[in-house]
């Protein structure tokens, strides 16, 4: 799966000293991808080595409809964005979340 690289401008804007809200998995580089993965790990009870950009929340991590709603809420909170319901439905994988958030923050 190919995906557009996160624009450098968005990255630098996001690379803050914000303390991670989830203490379990420390991330050294707070890129969108790392932050998304961290949320997915904390919410779905998995570890970073077990997920990739292709990982599907429902098919690979066993998420149900309520779990995906909760994940989207966490993305909204972490990146301070609003994700409308019609967009949220399309965010089914880690990669889709990274792409969507990257575009949203441009």
């Amino acid at each position, binding site marked *: 799966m190919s995906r557009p690289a996160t624009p450098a401008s968005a990255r630098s804007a996001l690379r803050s000293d914000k303390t991670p809200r989830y203490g379990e998995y420390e991330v050294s580089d707070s890129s969108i991808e790392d932050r998304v993965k961290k949320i997915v790990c904390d*919410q779905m*009870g998995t570890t970073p080595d077990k997920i990739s950009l292709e990982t599907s929340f429902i098919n690979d991590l066993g998420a149900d409809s*309520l*779990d995906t709603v909760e994940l989207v*809420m966490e993305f909204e909170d972490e990146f301070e964005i609003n994700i409308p319901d019609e967009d949220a439905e399309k965010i089914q994988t880690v990669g889709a979340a990274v792409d969507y958030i990257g575009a949203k923050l441009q």
Partner: protein
Amino acid sequence: MRRVVITGIGTVNALGLDVATSYPRILAGENGVSTITRFDTEGISATIAAQVDWDPEACGFDVKDQRKLDPFTMWAMMASDEALQDAGMEKPNDLPQEQRERIGTIIGTGIGGITGILEQHDVLKERGARRVSPHFIPRIMPNAVSGQVAIRHGLMGTAFTTSSACASAGHAIGMAWRAIQWDDCDVVVTGGAESAMTPLSMAGFASAKALSTRNDAPELASRPFDKDRDGFVMGEGAGILVLEEYEHAKARGAKIYAEVKGYGSTDDAFHITAPKEDGYGPMRAMQEALRHAGVNPDQVEYINAHGTSTAYNDSIETTALHRVFGDHAKKLAVNSTKSMVGHLLGGATAVELVVTALAIKNAEVHPTRNYTTPDPACDLDYVPGSARQLVIQNALCNSLGFGGHNVSICIGKV
């Protein structure tokens, strides 16, 4: 009428996370009450409770599960695993669907998911409505406990939750008995669970002057029927029983603890918290349980009392026992499991029926811990000191709840 027997038992309580651990401690009259460590009790008059000592991860609940499940539901799931395994039904999920459609799930709770309510109320106040978890409602609704246990084991028969405060499990077990008698089910996973040890609920019970404030001596605080009792001690946990139609149990060679013979349920229709002094409501509940069982009062040897350790409950329950049993009352062994594990509210009668079933099977009753000073208003044999050998043909297990609800269950030898 189809007969109903108990073929499996499970519990989570302050003295252990299963029957094998907690029952010997109950029999020995051990103390399950200690100073509350789970939260700051500043300002609450009662700072002691019978707390379940557990690690959710070690019990199989990962962080994801813990966001979706209140403790009362997790404990009922643990106790249901134990009870089904004990009944020789380790994997009900593997049974053919037509069999699973004949297995029900009826579990009571008095308060429901108050841990989740408090947690998400904080989220609402601090982070706003859009941050309230989508798991909030399915976590905190009282019937989550029955739904989750049914899902866990694939039980497709009737399933619902009873809620009648401290009588919740009594009603659940009564309805389970009926569901089997009436041929709706062959097996019902039943009982009760409670996790109401939160600052808010403790403060509420304390304001209602229901709790013991013997904070400096937790091990002496739960003292049912004793003259120096000063309120109940909050407990938590779950009790689950597998009730099964007698022929069904025999056909698969299941071990049988006891037969559930009768169930009586009444209301005082008097006051929302205070029991009526004449004991008429609990008397009628016990009489109805005996009538359905076809058991005469003088054929009963043992009462597992509601015995909360409040001034009113214990004297009024004693009055009711006198009214039901007359001269035979003095010959009864009457004890209160709450003297060890505290008051599990909606889970109480379930743990106590587990204990009663074991008393019948093992011909031994546990003591009432801390019973040292007789009260003229409580003048029966409360099994002081230590456990006692007692052959039991029939027993009653009582529950009296806020709302004026009275339930009595008659169980005995098959």
